[in-house]
């Protein structure tokens, strides 16, 4: 699997390259600025891009803007955005085109190599990887005045949170140490209570949940 990596801090870039190579990714390019990233994404056609939000030369949200532009040029181009801080505002912009293949994680998440690599693979496969902090913020905002959410059991809320992060039923079952069948039952309960259309497609399911949590804002 070919990766284009954009990160301006040498130590982090180096670490990410080693981490990804250790997990059998091929690093097509590891760049350190916005213009280089744009060029690499256009010329190298990677399977997934791992991008830091803040890049030179402007040191603003240049990485995010390059990633969004690249996705407009090539819809569905898988992009995993990393940042020192997560904002619902940016998450919403990444999810806005509704085509999946999007990740948005705190840089701290690379500490857990297995989960991080899993997130990169999921995004490359057209799935979603949203940072637990983004989901928690969404949930705590919605919980205040949302009747359907209040009808969920604590266990269902837990499943909903993991599902919104983009995890598959199998992964959720693994984390909560229950069978996949139990998780399937929870998810269908959740969809019924939130009045969402049930879908077999994992990815569509995640996007529906995210849209539900973010609605009305």
């Amino acid at each position, binding site marked *: 699997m070919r990766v284009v990596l954009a990160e301006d801090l040498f130590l982090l870039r180096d670490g990410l390259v080693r981490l990804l190579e250790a997990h059998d990714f091929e690093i097509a390019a590891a760049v350190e600025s916005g213009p280089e990233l744009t060029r690499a994404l256009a010329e190298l056609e990677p399977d997934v891009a791992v991008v830091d939000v803040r890049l030179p030369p402007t040191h603003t949200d240049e990485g995010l803007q390059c990633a969004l532009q690249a996705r407009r040029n090539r819809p569905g181009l898988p992009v995993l955005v990393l940042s020192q801080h997560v904002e*619902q505002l940016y998450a919403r912009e990444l999810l806005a085109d509704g085509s999946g293949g999007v990740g948005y994680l705190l*840089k*701290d998440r690379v500490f857990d190599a297995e989960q991080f690599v899993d997130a990169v693979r999921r995004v490359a496969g057209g799935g979603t990887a949203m940072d637990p902090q983004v989901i928690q913020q969404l949930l705590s*905002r919605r919980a205040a005045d949302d009747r359907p959410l209040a009808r969920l059991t604590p266990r269902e809320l837990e499943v909903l949170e993991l599902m919104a992060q983009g995890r598959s039923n199998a992964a959720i079952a693994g984390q909560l140490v229950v069978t996949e069948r139990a998780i399937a039952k929870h998810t269908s309960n959740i969809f019924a209570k939130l009045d969402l259309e049930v879908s077999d497609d994992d990815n569509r399911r995640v996007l529906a949940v995210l849209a539900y949590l973010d609605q009305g804002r």
Partner: protein
Amino acid sequence: MNTNTKSGSLSTRARDVVVAAGRGFVLALVSLPGAVLGFTLALVSISLIPVGIGLVTTPWVLDRVRAFADWRRVVAAEWCGVLIPSAYRPVPEGRPWTRTYAMLRDPAVWRDLRWLQVDMTAGYVTALLPAVLLFYPLEGIAVAAGLWRPLSHWGGYWYGFVHVTDQSSAFGAGALALALLALTPLAPRLVTAHFRLTRSVLGASQRELAERVRVLTETRRDAVDSSAAELRRIERDLHDGAQARLVAMGMDLGTIETLLDKDPAKAKQLLAQARQSSVDALAELRELVRGIHPPVLAERGLGDAVRALALRLPVPTEVNVELGGRAEAPVEAAAYFAVSEVLTNAVKHSGADRIWVDLHHEDERLRVTVTDNGKGGAVIGAGSGLAGVERRLGTFDGVLAVSSPAGGPTMVTMEIPCALS
């Protein structure tokens, strides 16, 4: 030597008198028509504002008036060393009516118009007097020398209060002329008096300046105090938080090193602990950074930073932004933290279930309005968050207004003068 010096000083003085008379004459020649023209045009232009023409012409006319006043400031400093302070507000670029509006709100512009009236009367007289003091005695001497004959041909001629009809009365006129001539050394002082008069009308008043200095001193002290307090807080947070966690992490890593061979299971457990310490340290640093300068503010500017802030609030908040560019970083940060404080207040105390934030920029001012549908009763009191906001804005000459009747709604308006780039 002595006589030389004396004659030298005499001739210097004579030259001073002639120069002063000449300058006064020039001033009189320029000031009367200039002032009358300027005042009339300004009056006409301002009174034509209701029909629209005045909106376009007023900035032009007031610009000319200001140029006229500025010329007088220059000659006052060059000729007599009289410094006339000028305190015009900057005029915004753009449409004529925004310029007209901004100019008419400037007290210095109204001072110009008051000065024009003084300049065409008292100003004109004080400028003309030095010239009169020099030329009128010359005429009197000429009259005594024989000019009286043709002048009194048609039944007498008045020189001052002397009725000249024959040679003896002509000598009387000559005596008066000599008496007046003795007064000519006053000419330079009269020109100075003219400029002093100008300064008293045209210069920004001492009281205004003193008031401005008082406000600046106060806001500077507040700014220094609050930034020192901020630094202390940051130091404490780093010391007790991230720094302590890094120390703990280092210790854990040292222990792991020794345990690696002896007790791998224990080492693994400590590794997990060290990793958790690093996660916690990062989380604390992130919060600290958010308090110093929010990342979204650096990356996107004020509008999106407030949008991101609104998304974190438990109360649904609508944000409307109309900004054509970005303000300077310190202004953006001050505005952001002011909005943040006001929003926190609204969430904590108002009981509102909806908040609206509006940001826009007009007339060289950034204006932020935060409205909530809560129970009202907010005041800018000692110890309230709003007093802190007021101080914070004061550093940038910003102001805060609160409208919060009991029963609500509460509307907090903040204004900071600034330019966008």
